[in-house]
């Protein structure tokens, strides 16, 4: 029986408990104010329901983890399992096939050796399904009965229920910490394994990137894991080309919309610009790869530059820059709005033109905020994946020519993890090391940027 069925059973029993608890609590009602129940009937109902559902959910979580193991043990103990190969790949394959057929997920077995195992599997699964269902119902009844018997007019059901609600709220907010720890832990774990094979010095300062997924892990050539070309490609595309596009356009758009444009124009144009940030990155990638890249290549060939590639860094960087425009624009908008109006008015009163006020007063005053916004934009650009996966090159290349193909950290992560390598190969592990570097860099950029923004806000408050 699948966990979902068990959960539905638990929900049904919980509803029954809820109704029973409420019915009992209604019977406590009396017209004598001295005998008024301590809690309203609904809290009694929830109290019983929680006592039914929570223990059952805990049991289901444990049971769905151990039941397959119990089934496997039973099957292995049956006489039909005697003919199985002692260990290795085939044994697991036969067992897996027989289980799939017994569960009804597959029409038949591929290997004849798995055929005799189907019946034991079917028996064992049926057996443990019944046990699981019975235990579920028993726990639900026990919990419900325990709670039900406690209900009395002076029982403080509300306090108990509210304490449980608070626990659930706390648990929900702990998910964020767990996720952060999960990301950090898994990245660090795999990165340490990688650095056990390839030294960090080679990784961080080597200038040749070409992981060989064909060689065995023992024969790893450390010099093939120099990530400098990837770091350079990432910085060149995400922090240089994209920012050359995004900073002027974003800043000038923000200035025009906040300082010059008619408010009516602004209310229409600003959401339209925001659409640029909402277009999925896979669409940008498609646009960069199929429309812009050939255009740039043809243009380069037309003015006599040879060796221009359709996987040029320029196409990916420009499209990424376009994607970032609304982000830079809204950050600049916020920082300039935070500059006190008196500074602006003072400058205008001295006879400066609007553009002089913006360039000499508003912009310098808002600079820390704008710089922080640009750092956030850079952190977003270097972590961007789909545009570069589709438009940049899979081959790493250390060059400063924007028309040549270039690869980035994210491209390599995708390339190394979507193949068919084993999880122990240094090529696979190197993807996690790259991910770790990316994670730390974006984290640092965000941390510094948020600090700057905070201090900048305080300076004017």
């Amino acid at each position: 029986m699948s966990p979902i069925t068990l959960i539905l059973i638990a929900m049904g029993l919980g509803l029954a408990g809820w109704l029973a608890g409420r019915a009992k609590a209604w019977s406590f009602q009396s017209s004598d104010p001295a005998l008024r129940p301590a809690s309203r009937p609904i809290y009694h109902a929830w109290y019983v329901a929680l006592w039914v559902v929570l223990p059952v959910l805990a049991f289901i979580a444990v049971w769905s983890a151990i039941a397959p193991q119990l089934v496997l043990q039973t099957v292995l103990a049956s006489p039909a399992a005697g003919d199985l190969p002692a260990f290795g790949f085939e044994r697991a394959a036969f067992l897996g096939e027989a289980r799939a057929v017994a569960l009804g997920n597959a029409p038949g077995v591929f290997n004849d050796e798995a055929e005799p195992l189907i019946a034991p599997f079917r028996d064992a699964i049926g057996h443990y399904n019944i046990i699981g269902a019975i235990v579920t119902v028993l726990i639900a009844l026990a919990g419900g009965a325990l709670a039900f018997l406690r209900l009395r007019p002076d029982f403080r059901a509300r306090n108990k229920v509210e304490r449980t609600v608070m626990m659930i709220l706390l648990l929900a907010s702990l998910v964020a910490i767990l996720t952060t720890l999960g990301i950090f832990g898994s990245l660090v774990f795999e990165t340490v394994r990688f650095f056990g094979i390839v030294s960090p010095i080679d990784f961080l300062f080597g200038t040749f990137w070409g992981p060989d997924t064909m060689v065995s892990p023992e024969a790893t050539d450390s010099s093939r894991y120099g990530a400098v070309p990837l770091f350079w490609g990432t910085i060149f595309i995400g922090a240089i080309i994209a920012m050359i596009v995004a900073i002027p356009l974003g800043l000038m758009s923000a200035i025009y919309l906040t300082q010059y444009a008619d408010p009516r124009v602004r209310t229409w144009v600003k959401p339209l610009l925001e659409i640029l940030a909402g277009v999925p990155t896979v669409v940008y990638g498609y646009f960069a790869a199929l429309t812009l890249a050939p255009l740039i290549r043809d243009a380069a060939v037309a003015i006599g530059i040879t060796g221009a590639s359709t996987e040029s860094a320029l196409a990916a960087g420009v499209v990424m820059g376009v994607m970032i425009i609304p982000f830079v624009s809204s950050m600049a908008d916020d920082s300039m709005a935070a500059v006190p109006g008196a500074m602006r008015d003072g400058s205008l009163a001295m006879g400066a033109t609007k553009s002089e006020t913006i360039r000499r007063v508003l912009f310098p005053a808002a600079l820390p905020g704008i710089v922080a916004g640009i750092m956030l934009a850079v952190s977003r650009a270097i972590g961007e994946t789909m545009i570069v996966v589709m438009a940049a090159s899979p081959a790493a290349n250390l060059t400063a020519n924007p028309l040549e193909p270039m690869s980035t950290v994210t491209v390599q992560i995708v390339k190394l993890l979507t193949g068919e390598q084993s999880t122990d190969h240094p090529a696979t592990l190197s993807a996690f090391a790259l991910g770790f570097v990316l994670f730390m860099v974006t984290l640092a950029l965000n941390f510094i940027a948020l600090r700057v923004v905070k201090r900048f806000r305080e300076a004017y408050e």
Partner: protein
Amino acid sequence: MSTSALSAAGETAQSTRPTRTPVFERRLAKRYRDERNFRLLGLAAVSFSLGVLVFLLGNMLINGIGGFQRAELTVTIDFPESGVTGDAVSLTAPSAAQTLEMQGLPDVVAFYAEQQLGAEAAAELSIDGWRDVSAALADDPTLIERSATFELAASSALAAGMQGEGPPEMQALAKRLVDEGKLARNWDWGFLSRSDATSPQAVGIWGALKGTMLTMLVTLVLAFPIGVLSALYLEEYAPRNRWTDLIEVSISNLAAVPSIIFGLLGLSIFLAIFPNLRSAPLIGGMTLALMTMPVIVISGRNAIKAVPPSIRDGALAIGASPVQVVFHHVLPLAMPGMLTGTIIGMARALGETAPLLLIGMRAFVATPPDGFTSPATVLPMQIFLWSDEIDRGFVERTSAAIIVLLVFLLAMNGLAIYLRNKFEKRW
């Protein structure tokens, strides 16, 4: 009198004003010129950004219109003559396609095609063309009693020839068939109801769309309650201590972490726990839920902050417990804002591809997924997979899929804006 006095004063001032030298005039003109140029520069930046947007969307639209059409050959089949038989029951049975195949329907279709179009053109009929015939028979079993005309998918080579691409002989053949009125580009509603295939003439997006819906459902069911509950805890109950700070830092960091990192997390944790669920909507949804949750928490906290303290004080004053205050008063008032944030977060998750790429949702899935644990793909992933195809016919199909994706995103964002405008309260 006063005006003339003023103007007289002005004239004397102008004539005696020492600063209006020619140098000053030139400088002033330059300053005004700079002002105008600066303003034009800003206008140019806005226009350029909007121009790129229009170009991008227009490009997709023009390409995508073609993706909703396909080249079809007209073939008339005389069923009584062909010997293919059946009745209303057998033709609508689930096994109708096999029954008809046993009766030789594919050969019958090929025969009539050869007779009417010539051997050359009949060879360019899609191999699965007879399946469309069998589907048409299932829709209307009475067709079997007479001669009926069908429009069947042409091969992708002929479709390319029709658009002036590919080998010259194919272009000539396409031109001849078009002139004879036997080849035409028709609206292909099947694009919305079929799944992935190897030929661009036979593909559809229903499989990917269904995978997207299942994945989004998992994401919503996980991210929405967790996000709303953590927002409530952090904003209403959390004591100011180191643990709370840690939670807040975690959430703001998670909101800024690149999406591909969530893919690494899904790969090394979720897939390690459920190795058999590679490519399943369940795992994809769980990964995207972790990515969406911080967005919901942050927007949820802003929505809760916007509820005025007087509401809380009022409820507390008449004896409500802190939990009752929040669940009976604050939460309902903050809900529109939270829903808006949730829709925006879900729209982001809907367009996300990178984390799903890492957890293996890039499989070729030719049948729509039938559950949360069966192999599936999602719409952005389908776009990515098709964009890698060599066959030119996929270019238009990819753009058409992009249009469908953009329509969904637009609808979600529109709903968010509508909710915000309808329920936003100024206290």
